[in-house]
């Protein structure tokens, strides 16, 4: 591990030409011992962020296959890209770098699950759902802050809430109104949400004026009350005393989608209901104060409108601001993409597949016989099937069999890997990663020009040769029905390794043939 002093020529070139930034950059591979504190910290942080990298680091560097400097040298690009992003984020809010998980686009709808014997109805509330309820229904949030724990316990609160929801789900407005009249607290949940309404009225001032239909209302002289013609649906029965308790699904859908779109506005651990409620209330308060300084927003809005007014293909294209693509978990992303691709392939092949299914064995045999006899009489003047078509069918079939698409399809995220036992999957992926890493180092060491490279290659070779038995082990450890899949997965890895070894052997032979008596490595 003291090879830090030996420098790859490419690294020198970089440090020589690049300016100030470059010199700092090359400092790392130059000397391990003199790594700046900040540099060290960065590496540690990077390792903490990326568990896979950490594993690799542990295996290769601590395991003695690669030196620290070598390890980092090959991932310079991603490494610097990472810190570039990190720095940007760092300047604003150091804690925000964590990717936030959005809200699920699932309506919470009490599906009362009764056990069928008694009249009891059960509701399940999770912290996630509670957060969603608070965000979508400010009145419930306010009621929670007011009532709990001074007036009732949290459990009582949610029982009451669930009761209100149940009443709504029965769609019996009259009963709801009657219940509300008896119980003030229940009434809060049953009535329409005034807070949400007033919030809406405030938000409307910030809306894009090219969408603002409310402004229309103010300009519409034909729709003075009782003017114009009544069209469909304008029948309003607002006089009904029960109107207050009527709630429409459409309204709820809109509110729900708005909340999901807004995303997780607060940075509080879910679980403590009260703190969630308080944090949400606070964030709404912040929105209010923001409004005072909305001159900026106005300007932005105006720019937007004038941009929207332009017809884009009549003029030269304008450069759009590019948002850097940041995929936190590449494997997950690409896996799902692949699964999608396979699925769509399956769909396009669906027609052909159906046709095949409808053929019985006898029919197939019969038609085959006919063909053969036909060929016998007339000979093979022109092929029955066009070669391109045949190839396409063959490819399609092989691919669909090998990717086991028959078992996929329902869930785009499901792939072969997911069906393997967890341990085997992890191990396979890990080996794949480390093979990649090793091969990257291996191939980048050619042509061998220094002794250092020579020793490095031999170290890499040793490490690689150790992988063979491990892969074999995995193959054997899995159940027999997965074995075929696993060997299919392992095959490309083995091929890649074989290629590396073949190159290595060829190189050694060439070397010994050229200068058999010379010691290894020459400068």
């Amino acid at each position, binding site marked *: 591990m003291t090879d830090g002093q030996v420098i790859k020529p490419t690294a020198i070139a970089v440090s020589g030409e690049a300016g100030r930034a470059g010199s700092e950059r090359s400092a790392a591979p130059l000397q391990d011992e003199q790594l700046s504190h900040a540099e060290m910290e960065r590496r540690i942080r990077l390792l903490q962020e990326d568990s896979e990298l950490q594993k690799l680091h542990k295996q290769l560097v601590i395991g003695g296959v690669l030196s620290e400097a070598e390890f980092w040298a090959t991932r310079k690009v991603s490494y610097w890209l990472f810190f570039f992003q990190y720095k940007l984020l760092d300047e604003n809010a150091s804690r925000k770098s964590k990717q936030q998980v959005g809200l699920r*686009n*699932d*309506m919470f*709808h009490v599906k009362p699950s009764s056990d069928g014997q008694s009249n009891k109805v059960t509701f399940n509330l999770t912290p996630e759902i509670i957060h969603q309820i608070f965000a979508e229904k400010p009145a419930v949030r306010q009621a929670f802050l007011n009532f709990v724990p001074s007036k009732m316990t949290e459990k009582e609160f949610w029982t009451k809430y669930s009761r209100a929801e149940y009443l709504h789900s029965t769609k019996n407005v009259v009963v709801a109104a009657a219940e509300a009249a008896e119980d003030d607290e229940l009434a809060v949940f049953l009535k329409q949400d005034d807070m949400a309404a007033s919030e*809406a*009225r405030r*938000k*409307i001032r910030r*809306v*894009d*004026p*090219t*969408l*603002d*239909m*409310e*402004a*229309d*209302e*103010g*300009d*519409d*002289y*034909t729709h*003075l*009350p*009782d*003017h*114009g*013609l*009544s*069209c*469909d*649906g*304008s*029948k309003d029965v607002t006089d009904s005393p029960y109107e207050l308790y009527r709630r*429409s*699904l*459409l*309204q709820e*859908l*809109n509110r729900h*989608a*708005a909340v*999901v*779109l807004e995303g997780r506005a607060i940075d509080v651990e879910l679980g403590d209901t009260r703190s969630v409620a308080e944090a949400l209330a606070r964030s709404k308060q912040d929105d209010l104060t923001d409004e005072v300084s909305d001159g900026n927003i*106005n300007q932005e809005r*105006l720019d937007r*409108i*004038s941009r*929207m*007014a*332009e*017809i*884009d*293909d*009549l*003029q*030269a294209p304008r450069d759009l601001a590019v948002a850097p693509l940041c995929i936190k978990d590449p494997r997950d992303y690409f896996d799902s993409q692949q699964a999608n691709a396979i699925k*769509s392939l399956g769909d396009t092949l669906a027609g052909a597949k159906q046709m095949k299914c409808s053929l019985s064995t006898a029919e197939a045999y019969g038609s085959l016989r006919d063909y053969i006899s036909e060929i016998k009489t007339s000979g093979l003047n022109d092929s029955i099937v066009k070669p391109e078509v045949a190839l396409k069918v063959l490819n399609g079939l092989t691919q669909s069999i090998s990717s086991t698409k028959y078992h996929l399809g329902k869930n785009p995220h499901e792939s072969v890997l997911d069906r393997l036992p967890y341990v085997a999957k992890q191990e396979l992926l890990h080996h794949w990663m480390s093979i990649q890493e090793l091969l990257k180092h291996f191939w980048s060491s050619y042509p061998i020009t220094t002794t250092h490279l020579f020793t490095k290659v031999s170290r890499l070779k040793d490490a690689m040769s150790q992988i063979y038995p491990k892969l074999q082990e995995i193959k054997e450890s899995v159940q027999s029905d997965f074995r075929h899949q696993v060997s299919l997965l392992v095959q490309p890895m083995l091929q890649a390794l074989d290629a590396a070894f073949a190159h290595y052997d060829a190189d050694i032979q060439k070397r010994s043939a050229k200068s058999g008596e010379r010691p290894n490595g020459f400068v």
Partner: protein
Amino acid sequence: MKFQIEDVTVYFPYDHIYPEQYAYMVELKRALDAKGHCLLEMPTGTGKTIALLSLITSYTLSKPSNPIKLLYCTRTVHEMEKTLAELKLLHKYQIQHLGPAARILALGLSSRKNLCINPSVVSAENRDSVDAACRKLTASWVRALAIENPNIPSCEFFENYEKAASDAVLPPGVYTLQDLRVFGKEKGWCPYFLARHMVQFANVVVYSYQYLLDPKVAGIISKEMQRESVVVFDEAHNIDNVCIEALSVSVRKQTLEGATRNLSKMSQEIERFKATDAGRLRAEYNRLVDGLAQRGNLPLADTWLANPALPDDILKEAVPGNIRRAEHFLSVLRRLVQYLKGRLQTENVEKEGPVTFVASINAQVGIDQKMLKFCYDRLHSLMLTLEITDTDEFLHIQTICDFATLVGTYTRGFSIIIEPFDERMPHIPDPVLQLSCHDASLAIKPVFERFQSVVITSGTLSPIDLYPRLLNFNPVVSRSFTMSLTRDCICPMVLTRGSDQLPVSTKFDLRSDPGVERNYGRLLLEMVSVVPDGIVCFFVSYSYMDGIVNSWHESGILKDIMQHKLVFIETQDVVETTLALDNYRKACDCGRGAVFFSVARGKVAEGIDFDRHYGRLVIMFGVPFQYTLSRILLARLEYLRETFQIKEGDFLTFDALRQAAQCVGRVIRSKADYGMMIFADKRYSRHDKRSKLPGWILSHLRDAHLNLSTDMAVHIAREFLRKMAQPYDKTGGSGKKTLLSQEDLEKMGNGNFSDMLF
């Protein structure tokens, strides 16, 4: 770019121009030259608005000796904003090339609700309360009192504006409503009154249809516009409906009760004035003897909505003697209200013409036609005399007088329909008396007569020969343009059945079939998983949408849809709908993707664009026929058949298909844009329905796409989206050019241009 159309140099703010824009300008220019009206249909997504604006402004610039004013009418305020944004772009370009000579004053005009900057006034709920709150501060008698008594509040913005007097002008430029408010705040002047004043001097005024078509508003705002004006009605495919709505009134039980309350309040006021200020009432009486002509001299802030009948129809004569005295007038109104109450108690549907109705009023309560005709103006005068500022409280009696004036003025083209209950809910008594106008040409007639050129344009004016008949005018130019596309960037399809081969339709007998609802749901579900960004769905009515969304929710389809995209819905609440739209756009912008559920003939269908990524697919669920059992519609159909020999079925189909075309047409904005349109109803595959669609949609509707099931449609959608993602040559490459540069235009010259195009 800059080019020549005959003797006019046109300044166009882009480097390229579509050939159809050029052709459109040529036709428009000919109409302006001929000082006549014209009717132009050009597909959406070809930049109509900018072509119009740049030709008309350039026309004025080329002929400075005879400047024409442009009155640009939009249907909605947000379209007004969009138009002004385009005009701003154009203005900037013209200033760049011509310098200060190109300066114009252009402004949007709207109600107090949208222009007021006085925080205490504008916070009121609706337009009428804002109007009333403004009057409370700015009426001439209130201001007179405020001078003596500083405790009486007044509006500082209005006072400042009055003080500035003739100095209060808008410098040249293009002003949106927002800009007007900002300018007003800066100067401390009331933007509403400033804008009202500047309208007379502006080169371009952008306002809503009603400011020209509705006589109540037009009488005040558009009274002083010069004859040398070009009036443009943009998106005018519904103009006939706007016209008839402007002259229709309905009276309900609540209206009559409110009117009774109003009347007793007014009679109290009269008593009070008799005791304190009898001279005032006498002065009014004298004024009425001389006729109502003085109304024009009222202080600016006192004006009110003008007479609902048309200006030419109001005789310039004195008010009949028997309603000159305030008490007499009130008793006439009381009798009228009583009569209407009696009529509402009917058990059967009744329908009659204005002449018999007036005769029956005269026979039963002794109010003749002339008294009816003057009701509105007389009421107006009385309310001013009584110094009533909370006009929003008196809306009911205004409605009654509106009704009286209209019924007293017109003898044909109207009918009075009394229904004891709504056809759809026969068990709920809800009597209503409707005065409905059938003749669209009545409201628009003065516009055609007063202004030298009227341009009616839209993306859907098919069949184009119907409009001159409906509106009763003779266009000098009447043209329908096709669209030259660089690639097949629109993909209309007719979906007739679901994947299970069951037919889908919103026809009455099929509409509530669970199979149809499920198939519609499956269609949307398949589409949300295939189409990126925004999808818009149109339903035939609110009630249908409400029902189907609920049933999707119960069957779990909605949940599956939400796995792919956010769902936003148009509701009857405008505020909520606006917010939903705003969020929908945000969701499309950030890549989340969303579906918007909307209603054909609803507010969203009327004027919101779903171009580019805001709408890659529109699904029209069903054929949006009007509610055919409505008596008003039946009466109108009868009138159309008798007067214009238009068959009922033809008109209904025409009307439904123009709505459908309008809904789906909103997906495309330029030739670089692309979008799919699905007409999901088996009836669209019939030739008599389909052929009513505008030509630019029909020409892209392939025979193979006329009878699709859901799985086939999904397949086509996939292929289409893949094709659209490929790079292409924007100018159209070889063959017909679809994008022209300045050189292209110069090369062509004027003569052989149209040969090249069509």
